[in-house]
């Protein structure tokens, strides 16, 4: 049994919240650089350059990449042989978010009551917990902006649906996100499980590096990712929806076993400011 102090969780979460909001993920930055190299549309090039410059300024000035510092989504993978001492794990995570968002001068974007709104606050976070074997604690903070979250969708397909139908749906979700959700996007897709689980898979897909997938493991899925990326980048939505080749930086698909009667497909759209930070301890 390994003991981990709640205070360690609090301080790690506070650091991760700031890290994620200030430093654009390296894989995303690399994909933006590659998109700029490929792009021929003059206005699109200018916008991509501004996005890259913004990432540089945010990192140097310790300023949020985007004013929408998101609804923080925290993924907790906790070993079954770990014991959290000195307080509740959930409280430690929310206090860590509160601390990180306050110290980082981030935005209080969360309202307590969705229907009656009220004064915006920094927390609580959305917390997804997974019990793993062993003694490790793995924490990931994904501040999810809502311009793109608003454009995410889920659809329950018939189990007999073909891959073309599913591709059409995914591309349709991207088209609908259009200029509003800050393209170039990263498109996370969850296929399988239940309706809620497909949504979680789609969100988790955004955590995967967008540049490469170990294609030896699931070559058929990575082929679908590649072909979707190609097709989406032919839509000519472009940066800010003003046209260009750079509509999408990456498509990542996660799958899970599902029921004989169904085929849930969820699409979680991320703006170009795809932020996440992770620590294993």
């Amino acid at each position, binding site marked *: 049994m390994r003991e981990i102090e709640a205070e360690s969780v609090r301080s790690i979460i506070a650091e991760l919240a700031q890290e994620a909001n200030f430093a654009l993920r390296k894989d995303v930055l690399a994909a933006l650089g590659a998109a700029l190299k490929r792009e021929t549309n003059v*206005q699109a090039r*200018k*916008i991509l350059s*501004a*996005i890259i*410059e*913004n*990432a540089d*300024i*945010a990192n140097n*000035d*310790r*300023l*949020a*990449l*985007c*004013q*929408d*510092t998101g609804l923080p989504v925290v993924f907790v993978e906790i070993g079954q042989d770990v014991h959290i001492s000195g307080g509740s794990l959930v409280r430690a995570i929310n206090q860590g978010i509160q601390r990180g968002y*306050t110290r980082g*001068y*981030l*935005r*209080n*974007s969360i309202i307590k009551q969705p229907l009656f*709104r009220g*004064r*915006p606050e920094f927390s609580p976070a959305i917390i997804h917990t997974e019990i793993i074997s062993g003694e490790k604690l793995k924490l990931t903070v994904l501040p999810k902006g809502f*311009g793109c979250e*608003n454009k995410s969708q889920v659809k329950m397909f018939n189990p007999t649906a073909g891959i073309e139908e599913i591709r059409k749906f995914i591309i349709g979700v991207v088209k609908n996100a*259009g*200029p*509003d*959700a*800050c393209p170039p996007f990263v498109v996370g897709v969850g296929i399988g499980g239940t309706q809620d689980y497909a949504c979680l898979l789609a969100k988790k897909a955004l955590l995967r590096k967008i540049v490469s997938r170990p294609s030896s493991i699931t070559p058929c899925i990575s082929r679908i990712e590649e072909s979707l990326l190609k097709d989406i980048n032919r839509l000519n939505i472009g940066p*800010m*929806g*003003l046209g260009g080749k750079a509509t999408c930086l990456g498509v990542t698909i996660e799958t899970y076993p599902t029921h004989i009667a169904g085929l849930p497909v969820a699409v979680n759209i991320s*703006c*170009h*400011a795809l932020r996440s930070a992770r620590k294993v301890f």
Partner: protein
Amino acid sequence: MAIHAGDEIVYSGKLYTARDQAHKRLAEAITKGKKLPLDLKGKIIYYCGPTKTPKGAVIGSCGPTTSSRMDVFTPLLLKAGLKGMIGKGSRSQEVRLAIKKYKAVYYLTFAGCGALLARYVKKKRLVAYPELGPEAIYELEVSDFPLIVAIDAKGRSIYKGK
């Protein structure tokens, strides 16, 4: 000098931040004939809710939010004299026609670039609704703020088919 949809310009002067909740309140006040906390005549609204202001800085990260969420309120604000809006993304047909009718302009600025845009803000002053936090109305004084004309006063749009 007339500006056309697609033009890239820079703006120096005053902007007023307002997003969802501030729009709801302004629209309610207009409908009920109450006095507005801000005279909209000739003003430019920036759809923006900045982050907290770091010590020693003028403003935090301050990029545009999605404009279409303001569409239901916009024609009413235009009627009250609003002359410009800055945001990101497309607008409804109704908004485009109202922009034409009231000879206003809808601009875009670099979306998802709040850290970069903070550099163009020279002053910030609270105007109304402090209880809304980041959704309060602030007066911003900006210098050479980068804009792209998305819908011009003739109703021409940079977005195809809209």
